[in-house]
């Protein structure tokens, strides 16, 4: 390894670190990203290999974790059968991730590690990524995990007929639009295909190469996107009881809306791997129990020890759970937020002045208490959280009622206007945020009627309603969120926002390795959203949960991911 020619990007980073222009964490993240071997990178900065995981974990538990036991977690049990189209993040992927694994893993500090991959290498122009697959990974049936399996999975994930949200992440990198006839009305149709026949190519049995058409720095993060599970090709993309996987567990029971159980396997290939994610499994079984939509049910279940922890909690549950002495609070800063988004193709939201007025009408700081009950951080209406490594510093947007009213007058609405805000009922803090926002908007003349609807109904119309409040879960990079939500024409662009200048800057940001230089471009993108963007976003929710004190090895991940192989139950 020491005889490799040093990648110029890595040399650049070393210089930046020496000059003090980036800190150790930024160096670690970006050096590993472009292929510096993790031990070397950590050794270079003098940090322990797993980023302090072991240090934190050792502080919380003895050297040898106890084996055995069944852990019950309260959650929702959604449809699991099509992992490529998972859309619930912490609910569906958390069950399947115990059975199937990912090529990479992004930890709670937003540092990405190789997982099923051994390492990756990026070309200096960041267009070509060579992925080296680990040698000793096995499926549960004993077969080897090889590049053929990876190729099969990546083909599916980039296939529009399968419809995975992975497409939105890599569209610019791996795909292109080609004409596909016309529809009934005569309008020309397009479809997405690989931009080159070799966009994803197999080099040998344990190497895959991604040949992209644009530079892209976040490929390792993309490979950890929650639908990007590595499935066994023989299962044909369907996940169920007894499905093959490479993980430490196998699913033994599954009833949608009721329960999903996974049992540990005997010969987990990752049992002896020293890393941020390896080891275990210690538990015999993990049961995911569906507690329904109601917030009170989670509290009752924890109080009577029917579950030892909750996968996702809402701030409204925090006071009651904090009062139970046998529970431990775990929390971490995250980029989770609920955007109050306007559909820019519909009146009055097509006028950017109206959108700006709505942002000016809110006192963002007040939402930390009002919506997240203190378990939140300030948002700046740009969807990029200050905790993210590529956040570019922008000023806060303070409440300015006079300016907001003036903008509304200029837009032809001097007497204000009436509108309706649709919000799903299933997440309590979002409803609280909307209620507070509606009250504050009265001062600028926007008379907003709140339409609280059942979660299932909202998700049917979330991309079509003129004005809606949608939850966005944490992503480790700001550029990922902007790509998913605001790039022209991507599947999850709920507001219909289409800004060519924004798209161009986004392409630019995605190819810049240096965190300082990228933050400059990100700052520009954030400022565009602050002045012209299709939403108001006042607050970020911290990710938190409560676990029984007898649960060991747990640490809070910003996206509520549960890594079952590292968990154990204290026997006393």
């Amino acid at each position: 390894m020491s005889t490799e020619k040093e990648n110029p990007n890595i040399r650049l980073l070393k210089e930046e670190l020496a000059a003090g222009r980036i800190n150790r964490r930024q160096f670690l993240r970006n050096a590993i990203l472009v292929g510096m071997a993790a031990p070397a990178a950590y050794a270079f900065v003098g940090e322990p290999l797993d980023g302090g995981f072991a240090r934190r974990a050792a502080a919380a538990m003895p050297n040898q974790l106890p084996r055995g036991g069944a852990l019950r977690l309260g959650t929702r049990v959604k449809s699991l059968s099509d992992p490529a189209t998972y859309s619930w993040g912490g609910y569906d992927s958390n069950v399947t991730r115990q059975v199937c694994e990912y090529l990479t893993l992004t930890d709670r500090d937003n540092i990405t590690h190789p997982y099923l991959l051994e390492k990756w290498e990026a070309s200096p122009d960041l267009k070509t990524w060579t992925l080296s697959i680990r040698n000793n990974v096995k499926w549960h049936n004993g077969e080897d995990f090889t590049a053929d399996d990876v190729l099969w999975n990546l083909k599916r994930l980039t296939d529009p007929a399968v419809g995975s949200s992975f497409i939105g992440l890599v569209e610019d990198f791996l795909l292109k639009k080609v004409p596909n006839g016309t529809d009934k009305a005569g309008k020309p149709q397009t479809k997405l295909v690989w931009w080159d026949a070799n966009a994803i190519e197999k080099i040998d049995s344990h190497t895959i190469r991604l040949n992209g058409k644009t530079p892209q720095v976040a490929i390792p993060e993309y490979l950890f996107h929650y639908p990007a599970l590595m499935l066994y090709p023989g299962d044909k993309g369907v996940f169920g009881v007894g499905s093959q996987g490479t993980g430490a567990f196998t699913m033994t029971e599954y009833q949608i809306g009721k329960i999903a159980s996974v049992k540990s396997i005997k010969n987990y290939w990752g049992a002896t791997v020293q890393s941020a994610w390896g080891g275990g499994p210690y538990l015999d079984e993990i049961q995911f129990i569906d507690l329904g939509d109601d917030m009170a049910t989670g509290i009752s279940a924890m109080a009577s020890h029917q579950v030892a922890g909750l996968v996702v909690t809402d701030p409204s549950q925090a006071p009651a759970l904090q009062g139970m002495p046998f529970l431990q609070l775990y929390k971490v800063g995250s980029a989770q937020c609920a955007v109050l988004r306007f559909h820019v193709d519909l009146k009055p939201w097509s006028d950017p002045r109206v959108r700006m007025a709505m942002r000016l009408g809110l006192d963002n700081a007040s939402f930390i208490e009002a919506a997240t009950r203190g378990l939140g951080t300030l948002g700046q209406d740009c969807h990029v959280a200050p905790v993210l490594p590529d956040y570019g510093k922008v000023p806060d947007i303070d409440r300015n009622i006079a300016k907001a009213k003036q903008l509304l007058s200029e837009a032809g609405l001097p007497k204000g206007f009436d509108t309706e805000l649709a919000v799903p009922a299933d997440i309590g803090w979002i409803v609280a945020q909307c209620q507070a926002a509606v009250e504050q908007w009265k001062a600028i003349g926007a008379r907003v009627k709140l339409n609280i609807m059942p979660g299932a109904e909202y998700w049917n119309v979330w991309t079509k309603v003129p004005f809606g409040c949608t939850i966005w879960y944490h992503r480790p990079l700001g550029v990922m969120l902007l790509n998913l939500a605001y790039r022209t024409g991507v599947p999850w662009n709920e507001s219909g926002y289409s800004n060519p200048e924004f798209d161009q800057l986004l392409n630019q940001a995605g190819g810049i390795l240096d965190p300082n230089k990228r933050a400059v471009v990100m700052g520009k993108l954030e400022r565009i959203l602050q002045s012209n963007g299709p939403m108001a976003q006042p607050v970020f929710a911290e990710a938190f949960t409560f676990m029984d004190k007898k649960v060991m090895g747990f640490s809070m991940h910003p996206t509520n991911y549960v890594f079952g192989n590292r968990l154990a139950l204290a026997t006393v």
Partner: protein
Amino acid sequence: MVAFLIRRSSALVLTLVAASFLVFAVTQFSPTNVARETLGAYALPEQVNLLYSKLQLGDPLVVRYVRWAEVLLGVRKDPLDNPALGLHVEEPHGGRFFGNFGYSTLFRVPVNEIIWDRLGNTAILAGIAFAIIVPLSMLLGILAGMQPDSFVDRTLSVASITMTSMPEYAIGVILAALFAVWLKVLPGTSPLATGTGWPLPSQYVLPVAVLVLYDSGYVARMVRASMIDVLGRPFVRTAILKGLPRRRVILRHALRNAMIAPFTVILLQVNWLIGGVVVTETVFAYPGFGRMLLQASLFGDISLIEAATLIALVIAIGTQLLSDVGYWLLDPQVRG
């Protein structure tokens, strides 16, 4: 009597047909799109349209209704049970039989596999609750009605009205906070899971308590009113004047007459106990019939909604029939 039963049964069948068609029509106009629900919020429009056409959701209302009826009667196989569609529908009994309610798109199993299980759970809950509500409310109602405006009557009436006016959700949360969170003697949720450290019987206590508290008050008031009415009748006054002990008058003469009106009311509670306990089931995460129907309605799972509606209708009309027959048996004046 027989003619009466035949008339009633044919009315039942007609009602079922009409109601099932109405349910189909209503879901047609609802905003939920089953294909969108199945694939989730983030699926591409092309994929949603593909599934939409596979599920044949675009066909005219009457065509879809007739198809559903034919599957139910066993005339044809469920069109979804076709491997070429790639929907992974597995109908273990071969697909063509009377009572084939079709395939649930919400739970991804044949309807028959989920609906009877859930109905059974609610029936257990309802059965236990019913077994407590009837004697309890009769006792309270009789005690209250025997001495109108006495201290006993006033106390029982206030308690009954208070319980009935509190919504089930409030009663449920209060009981859970009291017994599960504070005293820790009962489980806070009732998912009917055996591994949670709480024995199965303990998981029934709180949901049953909510139902009993909520409903007994109402039935007790009905029994009380009927009791007061009967005790005011001339024949009771005659019996007392004849010198019969008060207890014998009540137990042998007044009671049977006082039970006629509440009998109907009590049977109507069965209806409510089967379909209307969705609130209690939600509060305690109980895997019951009402909660299933709620989830199916929000999702737009037409097979499940239809099946649940038909079953609920049969129960409703069945209990009405029972109450008519019982009324006929109890009150000789009706027979004449």
